[in-house]
């Protein structure tokens, strides 16, 4: 060995190939890890491209306004497949078909087939999803940030604290469908509701009449409505929000708090003036991350809020005679369409054919675009925060 070194003058030469299989093993393993990694990305890319290639033509069109406005401004309705007098098979949403038929009284159209929910646009589901997200975020952010403030600012190590943390951790692992069942049991069937005394439902657990008003607080739940769905979703993402908000609070240097307290500020003033403003960007990121998760969930809203069919937008058709409070409640106590549930409906609950592919891929494309937009926003924001805030 020593002689060998002396001759070549290189004591650190790699041993000959046949003696050392490490080098080739090194290459093979590196390659394997790289392949595994890029295989994941390739799968993601193929799903993404698949959706874009079939979905983008539904949304975009060649002539102005370049976007299929009907798809964004109409409610889902039945798709009619018909044959005109030239023998061409075409498709149109039900209302458009009727319009055309009455505009051309002389021509003959015969309906070949029809598909529920596959025509029109996705305005209803979009609005419903937006409302659900809004309710959910309003609730989960207020509760979540308050909890995070407690955990990071008031916490002392103790039994209560560790129980809270354990609960949050476990809550994060509960399957979304179980949250759905829970929401159904609590919000739809057991939450307190204000109803006229003579209309208390049989299922009411118990009710307390309010004197002089003729109304009663009845624990009969709200039925399937957007409030119930929003609350269920809020509870589901609470752990995500709490964890992320706490992290951004902890990222604020301890010195900020000490300085503020030393200047005679109370604990709350310190939190409000010297901690929250600096933790705000992080919390924003957390809430956007929350939106991404909530928007994609179907299981929790299946029986708590979502319906397949609704022929009006939530704010239309309210009773003009009732008080503003009544209208307010009526607004939140109605069921909604939601984009993920709409996709579930058109993908699994109606007969499949070439004709309703457009609705399916169009909805999926818009949905993916929305979710990715929020995901990208949160990634970008986080990168920005990391770059800007160095204390």
């Amino acid at each position, binding site marked *: 060995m020593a002689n060998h070194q002396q001759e070549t003058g290189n004591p650190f030469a790699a041993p000959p190939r046949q003696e050392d299989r490490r080098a080739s093993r090194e290459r093979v393993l590196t390659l394997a*890890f790289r392949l595994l990694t890029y295989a994941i990305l390739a799968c993601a890319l193929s799903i993404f491209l698949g959706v874009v290639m079939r979905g983008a033509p539904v949304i975009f069109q060649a002539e102005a306004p370049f976007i299929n406005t009907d798809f964004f401004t109409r409610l889902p309705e039945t798709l009619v497949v018909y044959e005109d007098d030239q023998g061409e098979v075409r498709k149109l949403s039900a209302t458009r078909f009727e319009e055309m038929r009455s505009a051309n009284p002389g021509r003959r159209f015969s309906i070949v087939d029809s598909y529920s929910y596959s025509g029109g646009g996705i305005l209803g589901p979009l609005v419903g999803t937006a409302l659900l997200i809004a309710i959910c975020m309003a609730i989960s952010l207020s509760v979540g940030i308050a909890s995070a403030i407690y955990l990071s600012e008031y916490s002392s190590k103790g039994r209560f604290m560790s129980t809270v943390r354990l609960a949050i951790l476990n809550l994060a692992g509960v399957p979304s469908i179980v949250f759905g069942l829970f929401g159904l049991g609590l919000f739809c069937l057991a939450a307190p509701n204000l109803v006229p005394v003579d209309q208390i439902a049989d299922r009411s657990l118990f009710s307390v009449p309010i004197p002089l008003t003729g109304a009663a607080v009845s624990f009969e739940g709200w039925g399937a409505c957007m409030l119930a769905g929003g609350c269920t979703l809020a509870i589901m993402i609470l752990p995500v929000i709490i964890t992320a908000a706490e992290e951004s609070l902890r990222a604020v240097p301890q010195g900020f708090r000490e300085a503020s307290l030393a200047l005679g500020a109370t604990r709350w003033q310190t939190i409000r003036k010297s901690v929250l403003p600096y933790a705000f960007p992080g919390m924003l990121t957390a809430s956007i991350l929350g939106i991404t998760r909530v928007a994609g969930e179907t299981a929790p809203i299946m029986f708590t809020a979502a319906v397949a069919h609704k022929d009006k937008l939530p704010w239309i058709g309210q009773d003009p005679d009732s008080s503003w409070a009544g209208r307010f409640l009526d607004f939140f106590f109605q069921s909604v369409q939601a984009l993920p549930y709409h996709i579930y409906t058109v993908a699994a609950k109606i007969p499949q054919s070439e004709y309703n592919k457009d609705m399916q891929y169009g909805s999926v494309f818009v949905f993916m675009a929305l979710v990715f937009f929020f*995901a990208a926003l949160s990634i970008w924001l986080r990168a920005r925060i990391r770059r800007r805030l160095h204390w």
Partner: protein
Amino acid sequence: MQIVSEQKDKNKRVSGRFVAESRGFLGLTRADLIHYFFGGNASLAIFILLLICVFLFKEAAGFLPDHHRGLTKWRQSGQEFVDILNVAVDGHTRLGSSLNISYYAELNSSSKEEQAKLFASRAVLQRVKAALRGPSGRLRKLAAELEEVREDLADTEQDLAGGVLEPAKRALSEAELSGHRAMIAAIEARIVVIEARVVEGMEEALAGQEVWEGQQLEGADRQAVSEMVRGEFDGQVGTHPWVAELEQTVRTRKAERIPQLAGFKNASGNFRDAIKPMKTFIAPLREAASELKRQAIAAESAPKRKAALLAGAEATEDPEERARKLAQAEAVVVEEPDYDAGAEKYYSAVADFEASVAVLRTEIEAAVRALPEATELTDPSGRQNLARFRAGLPDYFDSLERAVARAKAWRHDKPYSWSRSFFAFLVGKDWITNSSWHDFYGLLPLFTGSLLISLIALVVSVPFALGAAIYVNQVASAREQNLIKPAIEFIQAIPSVVLGFFGIMVLGTLLRDVSQLPWLAWVPGFPLQERLNIINAGLLLAFMAVPTIFTLCEDALNNVPRAYTSGALALGATRMQTILRIIVPTALSGIIAAILLGFGRIIGETMVVLLVAGGKIQIPDFSKGIGVVGEAAHTMTGIIAQETGEVDRGSLHWRALFMVGLVLFSISLAVNWGAQIVLRRFQRHGT
């Protein structure tokens, strides 16, 4: 911190000069209120967890007693007895189908190729027709219209020719006549146009690849099938010579084979017939049990009905109406049916059953003696199925013995034990709802479905996620990291319903097409029969689980002290040796926890399995070995999503679904707890 604030409080109390805040609500300072407000929010997490338990329990609570009552009725009414007897029929049916498949596989084996070609040609014709469904339908409609107008024309002509019409009427009729003729011409012109379109469409379809896809038709065969399709559309009568020839060959070959297989056929016919007496024997018992069960259910709801009628009578003013309702209420039978009297029939049937079993057995044995050996058959599928039949026979006889023993031991009034009714849920093999016989709520098919899909997902995703975590954490350049990490976050953001949709639209078809490639036929379970199946759902869930497992694994790898890495490298280890011998073992508990949490995520996932798993509530057939992944299945999450919206609130079915929810909840808690334990060990052990 805590001490500081306490001191502050003390100062306040002592001096009073620094009391800046007034005592507010219930003697609490504002600071206290704020403190409790935040604390209250934080404790909400515990509260919610408790609430989830409470509400799942509340809705599921009635399940066990109701389920127990249902099972008791099943026993008392004798349905249980009939189900015991029915084992003889069910087992026979299963064996018979193997035998049948074997026989026909053997019969067809000599003309397999021809039959495949015929089948393919029919499939192609079907596809072409489907593609031209619109215009063809239109043609049919036009033909009908034409017929109608021609009839009208004939009528009018008759009118004109036959009678002496008033001139005014005659003019009208003549106008009508020309109108009809014009219409006929128009329709005929349309027909020509559309016919041309049909022909054009047909040629287009034949020239394209789509209609031929997956069919083994090449060269001359393809030519012939094209001709046949054209002929079909031309309205040619009679079969195309290519078809006729094939059919003739099939007939001849079969005819040649039939006498050779006469023994087989005879024996299998004997086997089939052997069960007939047993069926006739069981049928009246079955009816009696159904009737008893019906009465039992009626009796159960009777008090409620009676009360409703009485309340109704109370409410009505009309004395007549009241009398009628009271009479109806009186007529409601509240008593339970006489189970003891009913049971006599079953007890007396036991001896007959034993006798029938003995007869059945001798007849089957006689039939089997006439069967050929599996090795004598030429067709692989024939051999396989006959072998399966022969292998299943002893088990079947055993099950007959057991059935007799159980029938003898059966007592209708023996109380159904609580533990048994609990296990009937937990490990029951059937989940049968809305049945006219008896509803069974057995978790096992759903649980196996969930578990199998999750395990597949785990087995597929762990190498990818762990490999990627190692790559990103240890090997990748900073630029690669900045590409891969956000990309994986995007994967996490893909909604599960979108993945499910992708599974239905793309992956299912892709998997089936791949499985039909001839050179992949050796893979167990290939070719896949279904588009929506366990492997499809498993692959999608694997994809879903990758981000979770990746992120947690990467964290775990990141937590390995850098000193270990430099230590190993300084000892002359290569990069990979360092990774595999030092870094991964050190991070192992973190990695295990990551896998556990990934498992929790997968087993709780709903939409993908609901859309893609196939929705067949049955324990997958594990006798296929790995091929089991090609089966359709149902899952715990899927069943909740599918059925909760459709069942009556408070019914046994509803409660059963909440029980499933409870099981899921417990699994998720257990998985989390396991991960915690593993991680805690890591913290104590590491650094």
